């Protein structure tokens, strides 16, 4: 039986990706660069798209 829910996409977001979003001001990006360790800078968040279907 196929799973009812599954993840369609995992997309990591680093500080560079966050910087292209208008929601993050220059001040917030600057703060992120100062506070987040370099080894974590490429994946500060992950966007996940999940799919689910009601059972028949």
């Amino acid at each position, binding site marked *: 039986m196929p799973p009812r829910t599954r993840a*369609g*996409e995992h*997309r990591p*977001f680093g500080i560079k*990706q966050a910087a*292209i*979003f*208008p*929601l993050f001001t220059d001040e917030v990006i600057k703060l992120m660069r100062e506070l987040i360790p370099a080894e974590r800078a490429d994946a500060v968040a992950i*966007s*996940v*798209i999940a*799919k689910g279907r009601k059972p028949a």
Partner: protein
Amino acid sequence: MSEDLLFQNEIKEAVRSAYEHIDHGGGDPVADRLYTRDQLSRIPPGAIRWALGVGNPVVHAELQPGETVLDLGSGGGIDTILAAHEVGPTGRAIGVDLLPEMVERASANARR
């Protein structure tokens, strides 16, 4: 239950305020990163300009003609419009957003 609702109004206001402060769109680089060229060719520039999401749900949804789609947090309408293309004239794509101005933008973009 009461703890789950704690700060709900404050959170809603913070989200509203953050989006209200974006007066110029600026979603083009976001759209370039998340959507395919084929998808973007079918979207009005205004919807691309206001693409502020973090994913491309339509490409995963496997939408079929005649289905109904509800886009919660539809913003400038890019995903709603893409979904409308997939479900066709026998389907429906409904966008809902917290900000009335976003709803107006999405409606204008959908008419183009």
